[in-house]
């Protein structure tokens, strides 16, 4: 498995080559963040720029976000999930495949900073990372944390870590993790409706209705989001729990058959709501009903844009 530095190096080389070969006018990748345990999206336009590109355990944000509507030829650094989002965007005409060069990074998962915060409360000013560990350095301490223990939820169940649809892979393929078995959802489903609703209402009780989840989502590119509609107003804008729930429900429905579990929504949420819970419900549905997983091939058709005459729906009387 190549180290972070080796991957960084490979990304830089690939990016420079993509610029030089005219495959792209800009390479969208990650650079080191200004704050510990972070990266920032970076738009490299010159070979010198490319030297700022890095690979990190904190490359959480989904760079596909920057594609819809972007003019010109673009290369983009993509993890497995990001590459799947890109497939979705291409299928939905948000970006033309001819103008795209996907630099795929086989990924071993990204770190959830909240899990780190739970392990180390003392203030730290510096840190270092390897592919498998994160080391926090405070005034009088140094704590090493295994990455495996602080992976984001979605990364723990990512079966598609290698971006197979990429134009180029910067490292060898990596094995996928055990796919999400939705065991917790199934468990929840065995409980009473009251308990289920309690769970979800509690899940979103801190929601600020800031819609960061939506804005961070590579599939939420609508010119006008339903939450911003006024006639009719699909949902109220206050903290009414039902309005908030409606927002999350509808977003979940809108992501049905499209969500690639990239986790961008949860990464962006300022109050750490497990936003993806709603998407997981639809993810389970499209998997169970139609064996569908989003973004795995350029040919597949999103499940809500097609039908089979014998689609099973025994709940319809």
């Amino acid at each position: 498995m190549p180290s972070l530095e080796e991957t960084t190096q490979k990304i830089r080389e690939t990016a420079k080559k993509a610029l030089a070969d005219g495959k792209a006018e800009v390479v969208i990748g990650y650079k080191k963040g200004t704050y510990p345990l972070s990266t920032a999206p970076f738009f490299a336009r010159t070979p010198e720029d490319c030297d700022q590109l890095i690979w990190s355990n904190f490359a959480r944000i989904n760079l596909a976000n920057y594609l819809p509507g972007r003019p010109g030829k673009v290369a983009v650094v993509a993890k497995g999930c990001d590459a799947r989002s890109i497939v979705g965007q291409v299928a939905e005409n948000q970006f033309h495949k001819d103008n795209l060069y996907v630099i795929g990074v086989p990924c071993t998962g990204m770190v959830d900073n909240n899990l780190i915060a739970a392990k180390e409360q003392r203030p730290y000013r510096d840190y270092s990372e390897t592919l498998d560990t994160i080391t926090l350095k405070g005034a009088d301490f140094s704590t090493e944390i295994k990455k495996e223990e602080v992976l984001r939820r979605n990364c723990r169940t990512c079966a598609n870590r290698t971006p197979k649809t990429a134009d180029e892979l910067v490292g060898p393929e990596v094995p996928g993790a055990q796919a999400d078995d939705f065991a917790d959802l199934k468990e929840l489903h065995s409980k009473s409706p009251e308990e289920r609703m309690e769970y979800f209402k509690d899940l979103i009780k801190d929601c600020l209705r800031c819609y960061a989840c939506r804005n961070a989502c590579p599939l939420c590119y609508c010119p006008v989001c339903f939450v911003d509609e006024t006639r009719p107003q699909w949902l109220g804008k206050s903290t009414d729990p039902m309005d908030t729930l409606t927002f999350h429900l509808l977003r979940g429905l809108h992501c049905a058959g499209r969500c690639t579990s990239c986790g961008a929504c949860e990464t962006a949420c300022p109050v750490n709501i497990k936003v993806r819970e709603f998407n997981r419900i639809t993810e389970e549905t499209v998997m169970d009903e139609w064996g569908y997983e989003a973004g795995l091939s350029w040919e597949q058709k999103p499940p809500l844009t097609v039908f089979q005459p014998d689609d099973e729906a025994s709940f319809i009387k």
Partner: protein
Amino acid sequence: MSEFEPKIVAFFCNWCTYGAADLAGVSRLEYPPNFRVVRLPCTGRLNPKFILEAFKRGADGVWVSGCHPGDCHYIAGNYYARRKFIVMHYMLDSIGLEADRLRFSWISSAEATKFQHMATDVVEHVRACGPNLKFRKAPLILGMEEVA
């Protein structure tokens, strides 16, 4: 009425279930008066938001009914609708809406008795669920004296 009378919003497609309801009328088949029907050209017109809006506004139940698969006046509208219903059904079921509050059915324009039975059945099931207190918006507080 002392007993709880559920309020139910029904979405019927014009060609089949609305027709079945018409025929139920012609045949004088009685059923409980708890529905208010929103006529749609096709179940394919049913935006999931309509269902949520009805519940949010305080409906105790929602009933969606259209043509049997294959009978769609618009060739395939109900096939697409069925996929939406599947996703919607599992979503709402998962988050804890009582399954009996939301009914989907296929009733052709000839099936007046099926319509009657289904209508009665829907009301009974929703009645058994009791008033919708959880899946609706909190009532607006309209007077100062009521403000905590």
